[in-house]
């Protein structure tokens, strides 16, 4: 009994320590974003006790950089890529899970292979494409690429979720006279919310965080937030306060997702490796 209590203490100490290691760098970013440049340049790290200022946020939000435009760009790209991925990927996963048709295995394997294509490989061809076609400064190209990058994983994930739904449900609905589309939307969708939430979060995360392709494919009116943040690393000095403020703003949506949907995120992360 006493032994158990001691072990509990060990457990929690270890957990709290690990939690601190996970959180500390993120907190450093938030704290730094609330300091003025003089405090940032000071010799002593200040974790909590400093005079907070919103100066950095003010500069970013209302300064010369078009933060509102960049924010809108990020939102548009992330939301439309997520929407496209979920709808098209959902259809595809459904068809793969429910039908036997020629080329199915090939498609399943190919989907998994293209999932691994490195962004660095996409960079030069994407750059070539925009140079040749003149389509740049256009969020569509970026949205398209993010959708393509996210689709394989989304299909893989949703496939697993569809497989868990007994086919009898659909059969019954068809017997009751439902069309395939009705079956999809009325019968399957309600059971798939959790699966779509996972796939959605992962797609959004990719589109929201991605940097290299966005750097290459966006112009002065189409920059996304990560590109704008890296822009603060200027030649004449790194304005840490502002950079960290930008970083904090970028991190907010993914952090919110984590707090509200940690379970789904973990499900998504383990889906690839752990069966069942």
């Amino acid at each position, binding site marked *: 009994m006493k032994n158990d209590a001691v072990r509990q203490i060990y457990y929690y100490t270890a957990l709290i320590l690990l939690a601190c290691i996970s959180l500390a760098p993120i907190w450093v970013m938030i704290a730094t974003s609330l300091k003025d440049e003089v405090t940032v340049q000071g010799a002593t790290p200040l974790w909590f006790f400093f005079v907070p200022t919103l100066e950095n946020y003010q500069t970013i939000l209302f300064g010369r950089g078009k933060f509102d435009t960049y924010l809108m760009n990020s939102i548009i790209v992330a939301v439309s890529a997520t929407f496209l991925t979920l709808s098209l990927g959902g259809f595809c996963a459904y068809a793969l899970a429910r039908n036997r048709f020629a080329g199915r295995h090939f498609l399943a394997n190919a989907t998994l292979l293209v999932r691994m294509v490195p962004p660095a490989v996409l960079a030069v061809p994407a750059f070539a*494409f925009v140079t040749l076609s003149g389509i740049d400064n256009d969020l569509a190209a970026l949205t398209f690429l993010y959708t393509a990058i996210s689709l394989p994983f989304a299909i893989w994930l949703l496939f697993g979720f569809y497989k868990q739904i007994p086919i009898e449900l659909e059969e019954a609905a068809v017997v009751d006279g439902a069309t395939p589309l009705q079956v999809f939307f009325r019968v399957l969708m309600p059971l798939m919310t959790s699966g779509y939430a996972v796939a959605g979060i992962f797609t959004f995360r990719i589109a929201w965080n991605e940097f290299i392709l966005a750097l290459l494919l966006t112009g002065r009116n189409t920059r996304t937030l*990560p590109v704008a943040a890296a822009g603060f690393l200027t030649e004449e000095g790194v304005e840490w306060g502002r950079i960290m403020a930008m970083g904090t703003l970028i991190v907010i949506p993914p952090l919110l997702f984590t707090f509200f949907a940690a379970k789904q995120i973990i499900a998504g992360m383990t889906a690839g490796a752990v069966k069942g």
Partner: protein
Amino acid sequence: MTATTAGETTLGKKPRIEPGLLSPYMFITPAVLIMVGGLLYPVVMAFYLSFYDWEIGRELQDAPFVSFDHFVRMINDPQVWEVLWVTLRFGFWVITIEMTLGIALALLLEKPIRGASVFRTIFILPLMVSPVVVGLIWRYLFDARIGWINYYLGAWFGIEPLVWLGDPQLAFFAIVFTDIWQWTPFIFIIIIAGLQALPSEVIEASDIDGANWWQQILLVKLPMIRSIIIIALLMRLIDVFRGLEVMLIMTGGGPGRSTELLSLHIYNRAFETQQLGYASAISVLLIVVVFGLSLAILNMANPMKTRSDV
């Protein structure tokens, strides 16, 4: 759930429905088209571009055809081998440490305890942070002058300020450390999910057989999650070949090429020295490597294959 009850009334009474022949293709075509256009086409394009000496600011049609010159140059290019070596070393260290830490923590903290979900939420936070932001945060922490790491090393251990990002060994250590911070939770989460999915009968049986804690881990638990461990390992290895943003922000690949991973090298070749054609040739190398690793994963775990063949 109302749909469920409605369905159950006729459950199993009718034969399976054969949908129209065309409809599955209609369902998959849009997604396939996007993947072909957004992933397959660029890969093919990378092959194509590797035969041309194309640079930024010139028309592609004016770029001279150089046949296999770029590949010959690549094979003889010590820089490519150097970054490949850096990438493999980086992969070795981060994967070894992350696997060890991740598995150890998962085994230690496997028991369901109160507050587990709170801790897990906190542990996955680093995974959700944008790579650019991760690079920015750690560049600040490792800064030689105002970095907090130097401060605490000095205050607690009396160590003179170190030039973390300006010394080949230290910079390498810094990017390894950053990667460990971000990705150990990933291994941890996967392994713990695998452990918790183990059938409890087996564990109980080994308890009854008198296996001690160590025996249980080494002889029962780890072998049973072997495939999960290998998949996690391969996924991380692929990530190592894919990653570049954190290093781009933290060091740009320097000093020298001590932190220049293969992906970052391609990026630097293409956009720092503007040799788009040559960079494409190196991309082909990267594609081959990642393709091989992916095939390995595919052999081990393809949910679509195993589940749909029932």
